[in-house]
């Protein structure tokens, strides 16, 4: 497949892996922030090709997994209402809330539908005027423009029975939260290519200067990721902390201006809670005042919902690379992939779930 196979080429991948091994003179810890990159690393085994002096940390870049538990509970409550059609991207349907996930709500009779685009949810609203149609608007900067467009169109078309449950999060504030932590051990970041395709990478320059860490805007295929790591290590070894763009076939420095415009028209920056990390200031998007009427939390008066995450979960520390999953007393006992206490076990690519899997391998090879 064109533009895919070239970046999954075993010869190129090994060439970059060898180049990284050649130039890395000491140990470096590199974080990939995007869940999509983590996914590719696990799927293709990119980390296996790296020399031992390079450690990859999986950052909090899976929007599914960082959605706070009370938002999932609110979604479940809406999905269970007989007057609501609740629509969502596929993978949000099985994120566990306090009591149930959306697939279980559907099994108990809720009208919960999977859609691929928020504009499809808007179409469902137009086709079902007697019902309230809610779309679960989650994701990073990548999904925000389309979600904004759905709300904008609903406003233009006068669709009164459409609203969104918003849990948008932003990447740079999360990176700054990690960098600002006193015991941060991340030396460099692979910046998420698709997020940068939308918002550009201007925001990383001040971060690179302030914290003296390199950023490389990186794509999602194995060769992209290995090249991104190579570029980071090359900077680290020469004492540089710059912003570079590995993913120039998709990303421009200024990003996608129309996408940014529609996002700014509908959303504003708000504080947002992250599952397993807590509240980060200026780290999310909420609907602007003129669009409050499309806010499902306001429309259905959901402000009172509060859900506490297990105090036992150390996923915040794990996400920041401070503790290993098996240092948690709940690991593998009270916290498993099927009954996760926090984000890093919810995500199959999360550090805790990955540890759980490796343990299985060790058991199997006894």
């Amino acid at each position, binding site marked *: 497949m064109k533009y*895919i196979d070239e970046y999954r080429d075993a010869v190129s991948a090994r060439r970059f892996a060898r180049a990284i091994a050649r130039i890395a003179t000491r140990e470096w810890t590199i974080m990939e922030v995007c*869940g999509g990159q983590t*996914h590719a690393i696990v799927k293709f085994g990119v980390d296996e090709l790296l020399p031992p002096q390079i450690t990859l940390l999986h950052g909090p870049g899976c929007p599914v997994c960082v959605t706070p538990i009370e938002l999932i509970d609110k979604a479940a409550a809406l999905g269970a209402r007989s007057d609501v059609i609740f629509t969502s991207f596929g993978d*949000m349907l099985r994120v566990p809330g306090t009591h149930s996930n959306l697939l279980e709500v559907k099994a108990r009779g809720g009208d919960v539908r999977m859609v*691929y685009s928020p504009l499809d949810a808007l179409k469902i609203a137009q086709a079902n005027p007697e019902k309230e149609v809610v779309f679960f608007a*989650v994701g990073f900067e990548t999904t925000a423009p389309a979600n904004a467009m759905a709300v904008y169109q609903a406003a233009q078309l006068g669709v009164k029975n459409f609203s969104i449950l918003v849990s948008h999060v932003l990447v740079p504030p999360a990176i700054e939260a990690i960098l600002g932590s006193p015991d941060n051990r991340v030396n460099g970041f692979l910046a998420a290519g698709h997020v940068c395709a939308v918002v550009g990478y201007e925001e990383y320059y001040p971060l690179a200067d302030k914290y003296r860490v390199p950023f490389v805007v990186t794509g999602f295929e194995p060769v992209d990721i290995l090249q991104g790591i190579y570029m980071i290590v090359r900077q680290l070894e020469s004492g540089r902390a710059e912003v570079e763009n590995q993913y120039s076939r998709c990303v421009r420095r200024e990003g996608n201006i129309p996408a940014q415009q529609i996002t700014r028209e509908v959303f504003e920056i708000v504080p947002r809670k992250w599952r397993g990390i807590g509240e980060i200031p200026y780290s999310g998007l909420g609907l602007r005042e003129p669009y409050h009427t499309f806010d499902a939390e306001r429309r259905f008066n959901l402000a009172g919902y509060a859900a506490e995450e297990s105090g036992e979960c150390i996923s915040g520390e794990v996400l920041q690379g401070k503790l290993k999953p098996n240092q948690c007393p709940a690991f593998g006992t009270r916290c498993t992939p099927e009954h996760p206490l926090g984000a890093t076990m919810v*995500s199959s690519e999360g550090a805790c779930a990955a540890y759980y899997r490796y343990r299985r391998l060790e058991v199997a090879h006894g």
Partner: protein
Amino acid sequence: MADFTLSCPVPRITDETVLMAHGSGGRAMHRLLEAIFMPAFANPALASAHDGAVLNMNGKQIAFSTDSYVVHPLFFPGGDIGTLAVNGTVNDLAMCGARPLFLSAGFILEEGLPVEQLERVVRSMQAAATAAGVQIVTGDTKVVDRGKGDGLFINTAGIGLIEHPIQIAPHSVRPGDAIIVNGDLGRHGMAIMAVREGLAFESLIESDCAPIAAPVLALLDAGIHVHCLRDLTRGGLASGLCEIAETAHVHIQIEEMDVPVSENVRGACEILGLDPMYVANEGRFIAFIPPDEVKQALATLGDQARCIGHVTSKDDHLVTLRSIIGATRIVDMLSGEQLPRIC
């Protein structure tokens, strides 16, 4: 055992209520079988955990199997519920190494179903039966209230004759066996997904729905010592391999590079964030055969067939995959449903 798939988040399945995941051919369905059906119906034929039962009747080896069909929409590119209902059961019999002979057909019709649609389905059932060399010899029809069925459900059961002495079953699999697949993967699942409400996208993908008794019998007629067969329906290649690895207690290693997937299916999977290894097929099977018979088997099955890997040892019951960049990872059974991903 941990559930691990490349899905995010890791599916959580409780067994208090039946969920869609219990019908997805993966881990949840297996738990249901093991907890509810196997203990209640316990007998040696059922215990072999095969696609159909192999029964000895008056010295004749008979294969017997049944399946129910609940596909939505009823008509899709490359087939309809009728072709599925015939080929599915024919293929289950073929996986026992049997020559399929006779089918039954039970219809559950929802009040309001246009008779024209029923006629189309029945016509394609007859066409599929003719193509597969079977006769539909008995049947049943029930009607349920509007809203209590999805237009049309079909159950078929079938019997076939086993005409060779080879024991085709998971317990015949041994280290060294080569694994061959008869064609490219993921067509059926992606053809259905392309026409599903809420996900509709333009595609040229047609279901691979087809009878596979003929290629299986061709392998046997060519003298290939087939140790085990598995059709790759729900749960796809990954689940089929995991089932055999677990039942036969063997380690299976496959090469991602050699797993055939068409450009269209790959493209659709890339867009939706799905793994073609887990996508359903309706005309594909894997065969476990002695390694020195691979060349002949591939020649028998035609140019779409590929050797995708080997049984390496009896040390564990894992399936591992060597990725296209040369790293190795575990392939696990589908856990929950495969859902399109955001990230």
